[in-house]
């Protein structure tokens, strides 16, 4: 009986340990806060600015590319995301690879994360074809009870999405996508070099 009790305890600890996931390794503490290019005022604006909106699941998180030299360097987290469903845009692949650094400060991706991701292609010529979330508003995770939660952002319209189901958000994205296709909503554009 005593042995069985200890066995159960060890099993419980093993289960807990298996839940841990490796985070992108950086030499920095977790406090990272960006000045983003965009901060959207509505879901349609965010859809219009995204290249791809998917329901996905994080399959792996690994230390990614190091950019910059010496103390200036940053290291991206490289996140492989399976594509469960495409809500906006097109992809022929069953998974996409995200690079993350800075936009997801509330919650670096963890294996098993599941939700809706608003993505943009990086296209910066610095590496393979990576995506990133379009901004800190562009990720809604399943809370495990089939409801979505926004963990990176506090804006009013984002908070209104919290509590929706995936299918309810998909309906909202469909409406937004129609508005985008009809030209009623334009992608956000930064006003660099002006003002």
């Amino acid at each position, binding site marked *: 009986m005593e042995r069985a009790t200890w066995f*159960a305890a060890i099993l419980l600890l093993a289960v807990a340990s298996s839940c841990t996931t490796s985070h992108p390794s950086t030499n920095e503490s977790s406090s990272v806060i960006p000045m983003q290019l965009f901060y959207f005022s509505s879901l349609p604006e965010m859809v219009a600015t995204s290249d791809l909106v998917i329901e996905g699941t994080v399959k792996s998180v690994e230390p990614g590319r190091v950019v910059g030299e010496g103390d200036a360097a940053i290291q991206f987290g490289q996140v492989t995301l399976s594509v469960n469903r495409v809500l906006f845009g097109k992809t022929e692949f069953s998974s996409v690879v995200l690079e993350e650094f800075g936009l997801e400060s509330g919650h670096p991706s963890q294996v098993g994360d599941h939700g809706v991701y608003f993505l943009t292609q990086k296209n910066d010529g610095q590496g393979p074809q990576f995506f*990133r979330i379009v901004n800190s508003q562009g990720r809604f995770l399943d809370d495990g009870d089939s409801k979505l939660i926004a963990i990176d952002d506090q804006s009013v319209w984002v908070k209104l999405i919290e509590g929706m189901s995936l299918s309810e958000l998909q309906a909202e994205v469909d409406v937004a996508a129609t508005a985008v296709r009809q030209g009623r909503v334009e992608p956000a554009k930064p006003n660099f*070099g002006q*003002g």
Partner: protein
Amino acid sequence: MARRAPIALALVFVSSFVVSIPAITAQANPFGPAIGGGCAEDWCYNENNHPRIWYANSVTQAWITSLENARFELNVTTDINSTTVAAHDNSDWSNYLANYGNTGWAGITNCMDRNGDICRHWHLRYNTYQGPFTSLQKQTIGCHEFGHSVGLFHYGTHQTNPSCMEEGIMHFHQQYNPHDKSHINGYY
């Protein structure tokens, strides 16, 4: 009873693990509690009100000019009295400029040495991939990153009293608004 101890210990361990997962916890109001009232968030610099600022060799003169204008704004309009220093090891805020690619941000503030709620050393990075920025836009980015370094967070909406702490770089302001200043001066 003793027989149950291992299970109890394991449950305590598992519980503490589950509670520590940062996953699905919503952040508090991103601006309000960041400073003042005891500086409960991560974004506080608390050595004193004399942060020492260093610019890496990678920071061009054009950026330094704009960032210095941002620093003067902080000095002149708040109780902060920052100075510049010639070496990283003597600095509290170290500034870097590099092409970080299409990251989605123009600037980013990282705490490199945290002690509880207090950050003792910041790295401020500016991304040349974005832009090009005018000198005033560079100043806005500096104002924003310096603001984080003294404990300010973001406004999620455009403010009636404009602030460089507004989220996103859709609006370019080079100053802190009265709300920002009251937080800064209330703490330092």
